[in-house]
């Protein structure tokens, strides 16, 4: 299962996470984001224990979206040890996403 992350919980859930974190910036009105959701849930299940999947609703968390200069959604970041490792923009299939994030 993915975890919902807010400005308040971002530090603890993402930056201080002991495992790499995939962070999905999304919004309810964005169709590609909604279609990416099941892909990310599948990844969360497949990689449970080794990679965490977190979701940031850009509509509610404008500060985070600004901070990470999200200019197109869905945007997916991979964080490792508190740092952005890779960034992927747009809807894609599971294998493509994992490859582009550097997880496959």
């Amino acid at each position, binding site marked *: 299962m993915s975890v919902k992350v807010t400005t308040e919980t971002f530090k603890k859930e993402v930056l201080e996470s002991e495992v790499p974190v995939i962070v999905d910036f999304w919004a309810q009105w*964005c169709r*590609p984001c*909604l279609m990416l959701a099941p892909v990310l849930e599948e990844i969360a299940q497949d990689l449970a224990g080794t990679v965490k999947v977190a979701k940031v609703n850009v509509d509610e968390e404008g500060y985070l979206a600004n901070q990470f200069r999200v200019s*197109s959604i869905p945007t997916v970041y991979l964080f490792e040890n508190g740092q952005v490792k890779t960034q992927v923009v747009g809807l894609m299939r599971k294998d493509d996403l994992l490859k582009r994030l550097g997880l496959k």
Partner: protein
Amino acid sequence: MYDVIVIGGGPAGASAAIYLQRFRLKVLMIMKDLGTLGKTNHIDNYWAFENTVSGQHLVEQGVAQAERLGVTVVEEEVIGIENFEDYVVKTTKNEYQGKTVLIATGQAKPNIKVKGFKEYIGRGVSFCAICDGFIYRNKKIGVIGNAEFMLEELEVLRNFTKDITVFTNGLGLPLHIEEEITEKLVTEPLCEIQGDEVVKKVVTEENEYEVDGLFIAIGTPSSNDFALRIGAFTENNYIVVDENHMTNVPGLFAAGDCIGGLLQVVKAASDGAHAAIAINKYLKTLKTV
């Protein structure tokens, strides 16, 4: 309410429509014009034509055949597909409702060739106003386009900011489109898109224009524009379908050149038939209201 709305009247679309009609389904085929095939003068490798045949002849015959068998055909330009419980296909003139949609609009058109364009995709260059417009609330937005598709995107973007500039990139702008634009209008060709981490400005031969975001909606929407907005997977500008020609969006199918593979009439026609059979099966799985 149509059972199937087929977008595109080429070999994939018309073949599908013909098969679907013969399953006694209610079929609407929407075509903008005769498409890429209609511009091909010499076809020598299609089965059962002793002499060279023109693409125009093939497309016209296919449409006539579909109409003779009972398919409703309209010549309109589709500018959007929406999916709630059913599908709504929006053209420049009408809106149609369907239980399923088949995209058969041919190969997607290539992107614009402007320096900096590729580098800034996802970093200020966007293809979907409804997805990304909000990110530019009260900021400077540029829109590149010259037809109804651009107006559709412009209408969405007007909800987010008043600071919009329309760039035609040197393309012709029909008067009825120009009349709808109340924003700044730049008709010179673009030379470069510049920025740092994100887009900052658009450079033309004569000027520079500051923008925070740049939305692309040139000409008429391609298959990948439809796919993007509705959340269908694409790969290398082709729509990804399963063995039944269905995308990852239930009820949305695609056939012909827009899904890649052999870009030939014979394959497109075959795709259309396959998709039609799959759509007929799919419709039977839907609950009847």
